């Protein structure tokens, strides 16, 4: 039995991807993604790969974020294969630096422009759904691929902040600049 209604989460289609609500069976793909040291390096507080039990807790956190805030991270699926590709979307747990546009993909799907495609669509959704002046992205200072993606999205690095004991840049973009990009 599950009371979870993934249809309560908006479904966004891009050329090659679907952004949708989380399902229990996303755990396999998500746990595989987070067990990869290269992915975990910038996406976990410990910088270490996650055990499956920890990945479940993260997934519960993502779903709970939707339940409590009314927005959150989407599961990203590849249209052609239906495979789980990663997560992208809105992120603002308590004490966060701002309304974040976040992204993270499983390594097999890197280098295809998927993260840009998903982040662009998620950012469009965020700005259409919420009356925000700006969105931010918290990016580890050594995370070059995400810095490149933020630049491609038109974002600029601003102040630095400590998150999980590690230095991150707070990238941001105004609503006006996002719609021009």
């Amino acid at each position: 039995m599950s009371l979870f209604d993934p249809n309560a989460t908006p479904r966004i289609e891009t050329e090659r991807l679907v952004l949708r609500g989380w399902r229990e069976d996303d755990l396999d793909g998500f746990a595989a993604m987070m067990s990869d040291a290269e992915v975990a390096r910038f996406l976990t507080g410990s910088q270490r790969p996650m055990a499956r039990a920890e990945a479940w807790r993260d997934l519960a956190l993502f779903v709970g974020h939707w339940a409590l805030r009314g927005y959150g991270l989407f599961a990203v699926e590849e249209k052609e294969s239906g495979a789980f590709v990663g997560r992208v979307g809105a992120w603002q747990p308590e004490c966060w630096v701002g309304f974040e546009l976040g992204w993270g993909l499983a390594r097999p799907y890197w280098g295809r422009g998927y993260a840009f495609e998903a982040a662009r669509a998620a950012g469009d959704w965020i700005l259409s759904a919420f009356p925000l002046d700006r969105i931010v992205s918290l990016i580890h200072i050594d995370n070059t691929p995400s810095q490149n993606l933020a630049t491609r999205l038109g974002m600029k690095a601003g102040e630095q902040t400590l998150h999980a004991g590690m230095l991150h840049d707070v990238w941001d973009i105004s609503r006006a600049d996002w719609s021009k990009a």
Partner: protein
Amino acid sequence: MTPGPTLTTARLILRPPAHQDFDGFAQMATEEETMRFIGGVAPRDAAWRGMASLAGSWALLGYGMFSVLRRDTGEWIGRLGPWRPGGKEGSWPGDEVGWGVKQSAAGQGFAYEGAVAAIDWAFDTLGWDHVIHCIDKKNAPSIKLAQRLGSQLEREDHRLAPPFEEHMVDLYGQSKAAWKARQRT
């Protein structure tokens, strides 16, 4: 909104965690005595993540810990209920009903009252046939509560799954049949 039922007891309301409960969660997370055996004190951001994970459990599994509110004042006093991170496929040692009540509400039988309602609900609605409680050996008040509920020590020194692999717990528990037999007496 977090989906899930609302249970009512003589003095309490149990319902899935909602956003307005957060100040309660955050306050309880700072109480050293309360948190000593249930993960330790946590700052506000971690307390929010903990609350969100409970809400997420409801959404993913159809059950999770309830927020507990006093019927007379509406005050949030703790969280308790069915808990099995990862579900049946996960690495949790069984179908748990766990509890935690903030300091100002401790010692008044609230955890017992809420746990009875949660165990009834778990057996009747979730189809569980056995319930466990993961308890630190040194957590005397919780061991006493487990025994008051009729649960018995079933396994010692069980190591929890990550991120709690440093923690050993004793498992207390009982079958649905034992629970139902006891309720009738």
